[in-house]
């Protein structure tokens, strides 16, 4: 499939904003939705609105099947060992909070330690701060160097018998670098410490094999990988899921409920209390099929060209500072956070917006990382496989105009 055919699957790409063609470069925040996902989402809403797992009537049966088919699709996509290890949530944040609560209850006590990296999204920081304060545990920070590479030498020093969990992102939403997650898992497992990988960005740009990585938990959102918003996944190894108490109590997560006490269902239902995202979750099937299409040689080549163009454009000009330098095994995904000499990220983003270019500016939910690099925020352009080198060039020429407007003092 070529890029132009692929683009045709995403209706929003033909939108105009302020009379200009939309150039959507905020894919790391959320991806656009393809027609197949929109179609399934509509069909689920229009024809199969029924609650799951409960009723025996026909539409409930179909809705339940669709929902459970999505579980199979996810299992296959990330190569999990069994479908019982796939828990549906509302997104990465909910997945991580689930682990922070339930793993915390089962495995963490006073004096224990949790390690998170300095490059984490707030969603992989705050739940651990909350858990540590609840359990009397300590949060330790794995730093990054000036290139944005994780200090694995420091990880080895930080790890000790009191470390209960290491939480690290597969790809930072700011730095756009592929972290050596497999090596991190190896290091941690060598002392028996489990690892949670935040796959919010990582799932989008390469295939993921959780059994190959061997991480103990893997969290991601549906909406960043073309599925309906409010969908998300937590993969957890059965060994841990079986020992973890439920996160929320309610319908469908129980085995029996008596006034004398309640027993819970097994995973994954133990962790899926309440009415689930009936019309959204099934779209993971279509979304992951689209994600598989992006692995085609032609679309991969397009992404590589975008990465090469952007890396060159941002590195060859001394006015730009790119955060997250590839090299030494760290590959760059098409996500570029940078600053422009003397200019404020917000001014640039506002002007780019009026030229039709949607980029992100600010702290990008990673305030500690902003502090690490001594900035109040950055400008971020994040590309998806439907974006083109032509759009990258339009970004850079629009940026040039914005700089001219702002730099005329």
């Amino acid at each position, binding site marked *: 499939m070529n890029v132009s055919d692929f683009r045709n699957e995403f209706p929003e790409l033909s939108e105009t904003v*302020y009379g200009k063609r939309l150039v959507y470069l905020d894919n790391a925040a959320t991806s656009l939705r393809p027609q197949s996902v929109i179609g399934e989402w509509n069909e689920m809403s229009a024809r199969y609105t029924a609650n799951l797992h409960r009723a025996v009537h026909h539409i409930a049966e179909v809705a339940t099947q669709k929902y459970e088919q999505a579980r199979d699709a996810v299992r296959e996509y990330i190569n999990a060992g069994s479908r019982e290890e796939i828990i549906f949530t509302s997104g990465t944040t909910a997945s991580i909070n689930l682990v922070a609560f339930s793993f915390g209850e089962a495995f963490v006590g006073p004096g224990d330690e949790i390690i998170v990296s300095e490059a984490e999204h707030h969603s992989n920081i705050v739940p651990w701060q909350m858990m540590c304060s609840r359990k009397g545990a300590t949060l330790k920070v794995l730093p990054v160097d000036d290139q944005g590479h994780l200090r694995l030498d420091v990880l080895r020093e930080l790890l000790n018998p009191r470390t209960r969990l290491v939480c690290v992102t597969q790809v930072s939403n700011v730095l756009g670098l592929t972290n050596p997650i497999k090596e991190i898992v190896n290091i941690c497992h060598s002392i028996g410490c489990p690892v949670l990988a935040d796959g919010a960005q990582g799932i989008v740009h390469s295939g993921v094999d959780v059994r190959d990585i061997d991480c103990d938990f893997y969290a991601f959102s549906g909406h960043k990988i073309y599925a309906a918003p409010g969908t998300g996944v937590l993969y957890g190894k059965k060994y841990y899921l079986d020992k973890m108490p439920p996160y929320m109590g309610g319908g469908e997560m129980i085995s029996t409920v008596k006034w004398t006490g309640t027993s819970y269902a097994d995973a994954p239902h133990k962790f899926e209390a309440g009415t689930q995202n009936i019309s959204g979750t099934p779209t993971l099937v279509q979304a992951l099929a689209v994600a598989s299409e992006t692995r085609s040689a032609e679309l991969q080549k397009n992404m590589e060209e975008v990465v090469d163009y952007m890396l060159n454009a941002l590195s060859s000009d001394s006015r730009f500072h790119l955060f997250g330098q590839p090299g030494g095994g760290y590959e760059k995904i098409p996500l570029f956070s940078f600053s422009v000499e003397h200019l*404020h990220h917000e001014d640039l983003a506002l*002007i780019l917006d009026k*030229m039709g270019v949607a980029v992100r500016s600010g702290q990008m939910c990673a305030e500690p990382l902003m502090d690490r690099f001594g900035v109040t925020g950055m400008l971020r352009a994040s590309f998806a496989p439907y974006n083109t080198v032509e759009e990258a060039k339009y970004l850079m020429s629009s940026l040039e105009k914005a700089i001219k407007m702002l730099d005329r003092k």
Partner: protein
Amino acid sequence: MKSLKEVQDDVIEEFSMYDDWLDKYEYLIELGNGLEPFPDEFKTDDRLIKGCQSRVWLDTSVECGRLFFKADSDAVITKGIISLLVGVYSGREACEIASDDFSFVEKLGLRENLSPTRANGLASMIGTIRSTASKNCQK
């Protein structure tokens, strides 16, 4: 001295002369660059306005029932917007400001054309000006 309403109408008229948003931004950038210098020692946390993606400082002084505003921002377009607000409200009587409905900001079209985070910042700026005015209006 023109009334508050008259000054606001002037600003709305001037701003509406620019059809294109980029021209409006050019205008705001110019306004921001022309803002009276803000002393560095005034850039304190208590003058910092919450809810902005860029940092905004607002200093208020009171003389004979009139409020005088000085402001600054590390972002130029935001500086232009606060410069509009300062231009309209600085030097006015506290009670006159307190009784204003601030609807002229809507008429400028700024709120809906700025990102929600930015609109938040604008709302915070207005909130600060309004509450300072109420505090200083003894009626």
